[in-house]
């Protein structure tokens, strides 16, 4: 039996999907962690990105911070926070929120900053308040780049949530870490397939939402 | 008119994209050593026709002869190196210095770096830029300067043919007027065959020895000297395209030399309250009572009747100011004299004696 047959056998084994610790449970855990992380990252990154993009203040800081955050090794943060806070959900969530902020912030900031100043000027000349300019002109025009940042962050988070299993949490990474411990390749291949499919499906959904939310004029 | 050799000949040239005919049976002979202007509304195929000459666009059927030779006889890149090409946006290489930009074609043709460089420095002077520009990069130039470098680069090919695709349309009017004057000055010493594309009729009249008026659908509505086209538009399309200010434009071809010039003290008549201010021999506005009002356009002696008329119409006093090439006041033009001259010109044009 080659590796593909073995992996297929792993997928189709009795209870592979529905058992405790089965695929459904791991998928839900993986999605839950990812959603939680993206939620907190968005809570931090979006307001900052909007403010900096709109006012043009602190651009250098944002560029510097997004670069520096990218350089921080997620595994290092994860292990460090785990030592400090114990093996709960808090440590890895904070580590991954830091990871996700960088692409989100970059997307929101550059999206707003890239809006043609003439358009903004025209909006102001027509008597829009700054808030109206932000919500009715800049946000809709920046939507493609903001979604780009969100999708980028989502892909990275879904891929990286796998290492949460390294500190004894769930998610699809369990199959990788457990499979690695006993050199069970079919299980590891299955994990890779599951993570990739999950990432693609979520990305496709986001693409659909983006299509529905952005003006045909900016596509 | 002496017999002219033809530098470029279009013979039954067609260009189609699918069902869309862009150039429709073009037959045209472009004389050597002259400026021929392709003019017409956008989408009339004038630029496409230009670009077929150096095969930036390949034509669908027909023949184009360049100096008597079919332009498909040799590889396109060799053909292109053999003629200069000036684009609308100068299209300089942003990563190369000005002098390297000008040397592009000579270097492609295998000229040594040293020789290409000294030639480039010369060309920089030819187009009116000093050598301090040599080491700069294109991003440090203004639009007009970049376009001058574009012309220098095209001249560097040392070919007899220069293709210019709306070269001055992206610069502001003042700079454009400068560049136009410069081109005419250059041409008077270089005598190249220049094909110049524009959508601006005034530019066509000013620059062209010959003008080809293109109509939509890619056909030539009229080919002739600017004067012929203004005097006898071939059809309604040409008439309407030439249309606006046609009467004024015509005066461009009439000399203002026979309009009498009145000495300055001619204005000292009792009914004349306007006084011309003169500083260092140059006009400096008109004085009336205690006010000084800036003067109108100046008529440079020997200019066209159009310039003469404009100097009269734009002058606050109704007197046109005549100056020499150095800007020194020579005298004044009277509006009645100018109108009389236009009248003489009109009768002359149709061969009727007064």
């Amino acid at each position, binding site marked *: 039996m080659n590796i593909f047959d073995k992996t297929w056998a792993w997928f189709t084994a009795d209870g592979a999907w529905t058992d405790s610790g089965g695929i459904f449970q791991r998928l839900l855990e993986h999605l839950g962690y990812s959603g939680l992380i993206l939620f907190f990252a968005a809570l931090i990154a979006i307001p900052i990105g909007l403010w900096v993009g709109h006012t043009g203040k602190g651009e250098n800081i944002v560029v510097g911070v997004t670069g520096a955050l990218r350089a921080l090794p997620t595994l290092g943060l994860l292990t460090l926070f785990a030592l400090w806070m114990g093996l709960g959900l808090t440590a890895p969530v904070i580590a991954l929120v830091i990871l996700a902020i960088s692409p989100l912030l970059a997307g929101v900031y550059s999206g707003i900053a890239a809006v043609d100043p003439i358009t903004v000027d025209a909006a102001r000349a027509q008597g829009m308040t700054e808030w109206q300019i932000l919500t009715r002109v800049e946000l809709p025009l920046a939507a493609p780049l903001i979604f780009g940042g969100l999708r980028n962050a989502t892909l990275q988070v879904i*891929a990286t949530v796998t290492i949460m299993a390294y500190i004894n949490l769930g998610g699809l990474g369990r199959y990788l870490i457990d499979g690695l411990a006993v050199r069970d390749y079919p299980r590891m*291949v299955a994990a890779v397939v599951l993570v990739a499919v999950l*990432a693609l499906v979520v990305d496709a959904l986001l693409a659909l939402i983006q299509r529905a939310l952005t003006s045909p004029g900016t596509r | 008119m002496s017999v002219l050799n033809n530098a470029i000949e279009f013979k039954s040239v067609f260009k189609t994209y699918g069902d869309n005919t862009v150039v429709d049976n073009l037959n045209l002979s472009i004389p050597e050593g002259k400026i021929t202007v392709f003019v017409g509304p956008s989408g009339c195929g004038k630029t496409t026709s230009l670009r077929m000459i150096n095969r930036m666009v390949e034509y669908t059927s027909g023949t184009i002869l360049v100096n008597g030779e079919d332009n498909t006889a040799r590889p396109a890149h060799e053909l292109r190196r053999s003629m200069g090409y000036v684009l609308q946006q100068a299209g300089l290489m942003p990563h190369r210095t000005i002098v390297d930009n000008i040397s592009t074609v000579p270097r492609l043709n295998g000229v040594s770096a040293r020789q290409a460089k000294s030639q480039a420095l010369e060309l920089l002077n030819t187009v009116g830029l000093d050598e301090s520009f040599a080491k700069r990069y294109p991003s440090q130039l203004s639009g007009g300067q970049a376009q001058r470098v574009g012309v220098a680069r095209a001249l560097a090919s040392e070919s007899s043919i220069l293709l210019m695709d709306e070269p001055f349309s992206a610069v502001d009017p003042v700079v454009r007027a400068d560049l136009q004057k410069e081109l005419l000055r250059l041409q008077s010493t270089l005598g190249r065959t220049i094909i110049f594309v524009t959508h601006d009729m005034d530019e066509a009249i000013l620059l062209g020895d010959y003008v080809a008026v293109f109509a939509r659908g890619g056909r030539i509505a009229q080919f002739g000297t600017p004067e012929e086209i203004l005097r006898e538009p071939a059809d309604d399309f040409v008439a309407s395209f030439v249309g606006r200010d046609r009467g004024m434009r015509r005066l461009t071809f009439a000399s203002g030399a026979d309009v009498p010039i009145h000495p300055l003290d001619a204005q000292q008549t009792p009914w004349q309250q306007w006084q011309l201010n003169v500083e260092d021999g140059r006009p400096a506005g008109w004085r009336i009572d205690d006010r000084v009002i800036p003067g109108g356009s100046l008529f440079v002696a020997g200019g066209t009747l159009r310039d003469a008329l404009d100097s009269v119409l734009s002058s606050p006093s109704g007197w046109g100011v005549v100056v020499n090439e150095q800007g020194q006041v020579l005298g004044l033009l009277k509006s009645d004299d100018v109108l009389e001259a236009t009248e003489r010109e009109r009768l002359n044009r149709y061969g009727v004696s007064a």
Partner: protein
Amino acid sequence: MNWLQSNLQHVGELTALHLLQSIIPVIIGTIIAVPIARFAMGRRRDGRSTERTTSAGKLRRGLVINSAALLYTIPSLALFVLMPLVLGTSITSLLNVYVALTLYVIAMMVRSAVDAFDSVSPVTLEAATAMGYRTTRRFWAVELPLAVPVMIAGLRVALVSNISMVSVGAVIGIQSLGTLFTDGLRRDLPAEIITGIVATVLLALVLDRLLALLGSFLTRWRTA
């Protein structure tokens, strides 16, 4: 600090290993990604060419960019453990890391190289063609040098991300600064982990700076 002082040599060795694993994939990946990106762009004759909007061109471009994006969805940890299956290497072989990270660099650089070629003004390319450049010479003399600024920007992102990703190899026992994380967690030594983080960030900052300097050296014409 005490921990660092007594383990200076060990950290030095791990930094050197980390450096190798960061740089080699970036170099190889870029060399592979640039031609792929250029191929995806299709023929670019000049500014007025309709070539780029043909359905075949769009298809090719979409295919290349999307397969690069697909590659990026695979977790780095997963790619490390799968490499032995594909390459027939042992699980702790350095080759696994090199190949896996090279794939990531390709995935990132294809995208930014496409953007880089896109950023070259069609007017300049057209001018070069009109001047008599042939395709190959135009690529080396005009198109590639003008694509450098955007490419360097992409390269900096790829390099920094790569440095951070190298540490994940430690989970499967491949030595790098990441070893300080796994070891520090096992031995309950925050100092060791912090040392690892600081060293990784410093490495990233220094290499990023060097790359930026290289970039401004190659593109003197922009700010000159």
